[in-house]
């Protein structure tokens, strides 16, 4: 297979406890997610708080062990790797997080932060280290003189550049971007997005871009998945999903995105979700049922799987249950 990353039926459940070690239930944070990322492409992942985006990212980074399912990096299951193979896999997948001030060690200078992965993985002789650091800093648009600065002396955008340089230092195949621009201002966000585009064009890195900002995803991703309560409910080429959102949840989400062209538009019509979110999702049937504006009786009992809307475009909604279903959709069939 030529896929860079494959996620197959991944599940992660957390036990809910109350009192001392008394199990009261489970939270299905990720509930059977499958997708794949092609090399040099950007896979966007969107969804509201608590839908399992970050848990999914943590499983892919092997920070947490999933309950079941597989994550394959270039064909190899990352959970069965050991020793040197695991170390290599770790090198090939890097991550950049939302708040660089929290993900960068405040007691390390920019140069130290950027060289830390190089030292850990012994990929470079010491004599070449300095040149490599300067090269990386140039790539991400930082000056040489900033190499001795600490995170608190740099701006949010500059810190995010340090985080990007750090992630690039090991020539990874895949970078996981978890809300990389959410804490930045609009003008800085544009700079960082330009930088990420440029890096991908030059080095062919694949991105998994997690964001709740749909306008950023529309601009940035090739393929898009929308998550709702641990499931992918819609999946397809990004422009197709934006043009023809098929799941009622995607439609709700897209209609709620604030846009500068929407001045004076009446908001009331668009927001159909009940004011109070449910404390617990329904046990049976479609999880979106209680909020769904077009729900049918059968949605109460049948849990939808992904149905094909168009060739590469899938939605988990019974509106499409006359179409062929897929267990494991791929981005290049």
């Amino acid at each position, binding site marked *: 297979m030529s896929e860079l990353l494959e996620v197959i039926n991944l599940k992660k459940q957390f036990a809910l406890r109350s009192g001392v070690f008394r199990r009261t239930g489970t939270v299905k944070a990720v509930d059977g997610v499958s997708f794949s990322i092609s090399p040099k492409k950007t896979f966007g992942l969107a969804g509201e708080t608590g839908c399992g985006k970050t848990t999914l990212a943590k499983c892919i980074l092997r920070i947490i062990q999933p309950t079941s399912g597989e994550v394959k990096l270039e064909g190899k299951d990352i959970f069965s790797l050991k020793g040197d193979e695991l170390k290599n896999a770790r090198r090939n997948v890097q991550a950049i997080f939302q708040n660089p001030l929290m993900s960068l060690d405040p007691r390390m200078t920019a140069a130290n932060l950027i060289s830390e992965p190089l030292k850990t993985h012994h990929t470079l002789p010491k004599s070449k280290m300095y040149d490599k650091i300067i090269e990386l800093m140039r790539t991400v648009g930082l000056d040489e003189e900033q190499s001795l600065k600490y995170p608190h002396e740099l701006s949010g955008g500059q810190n995010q550049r340090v985080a990007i340089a750090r992630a690039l230092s090991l020539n990874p195949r895949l970078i996981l971007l978890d809300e990389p621009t959410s804490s930045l201002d*609009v003008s800085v966000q544009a700079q960082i997005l330009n930088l990420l585009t440029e890096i991908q064009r030059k080095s062919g890195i694949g991105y998994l871009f997690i964001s709740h900002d749909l306008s950023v995803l529309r601009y940035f991703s090739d393929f898009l998945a929308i998550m709702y309560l641990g499931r992918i409910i819609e999946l397809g080429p990004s422009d197709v999903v934006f043009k023809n959102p098929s799941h009622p949840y995607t439609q709700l989400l897209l209609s709620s995105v604030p846009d500068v062209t929407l001045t004076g538009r009446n908001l009331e019509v668009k927001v159909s979700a009940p004011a109070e979110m449910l404390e617990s999702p329904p046990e049976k049937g479609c999880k979106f049922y209680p909020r769904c504006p077009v729900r049918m009786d059968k949605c109460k009992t049948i849990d939808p799987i992904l149905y094909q809307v168009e060739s590469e475009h899938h939605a988990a909604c019974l509106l499409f249950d006359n179409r062929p279903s897929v267990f494991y959709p791929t981005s290049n069939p």
Partner: protein
Amino acid sequence: MTTSQSLLDVLNLKLIFRTVEGTLQALDDIELHIRRGEILGLVGETGSGKSVTALSILKMIPENGRIVEGKVLMHGNDLLTQNDEELRKIRGAKVSIVFQDPSSSLNPVYTIRSQMCDMLSSHDAQVTNLENRLDELLREVGFQNPTRILDSYPHELSGGMQQRVALAIALSCSPELLIADEPTTALDVVTQAQILALLKRIRDATGASILLISHNLGVVAMACDRVAVMYAGSIVEIGPTDQVFRNPAHHYTKGLLNALPRMAPKGSKLPVISGSIPSLINPPSGCRFHPRCPFATEICSNERPKLEPYRPGHLVACYHPEGES
């Protein structure tokens, strides 16, 4: 110019902060007229002075800050000259604030009921039937089942519900001005759209003015009648929202709108504003935006532009506004 229709006028407001590195000129000559029953948006990037403008209105600036000049007029009174006792009667009653993070503005150890009663009793609100009033307030912000909410603690509610409660508390004394400082930044898009719709509904129902502060241009576009754009401690452009966003006059506003990824085709380069936000300890001379402005000429670096009429109701502080050569 104070017009009869304005509820609150901020005139020539100048605020400084004393810091270790020197005096920081946080606000420079802010002039803002909030009209009755309007939703005015205040938009700008981090550090542009949006929040301190709002806090100055209620004289709630941090200890190292000092208002060196200016007035905040409401009903003919300058709020800045009033003493703490007088201000206490205004804060929360005539002018109330909702902040970004509802989980930190609500007290975690008290029930919603006691926090709402607290607000009413501290302003000696004349309430004949307390239970009814609480019920009514919570229904106003969109709760179907107020009794359950009243007996809850903040942690039992979701972020959106907490923000609704914060709004209900802010509205409990029927304020004439509601300041909402990034009220939806901590919330999801769907919840955000609901809260924005709620703000509009509140305005329509109570006739209160709302000052909505946000860094998100889309949020301001969706909710506000007028918008003021701030840059480095001053207002650079103010006007009806659709006019400002459709035909921005200031090059900074234009740059911001262009930097949004919404219209750009996939893989294209987003136009960015060159340079970065200036230090306010040593702000650039003249127009504070001139070092980053592609249209700057000599006058821009020497003299500070004032807000001048650009189109009806649309003012801009720029010597070379868009569309003029």
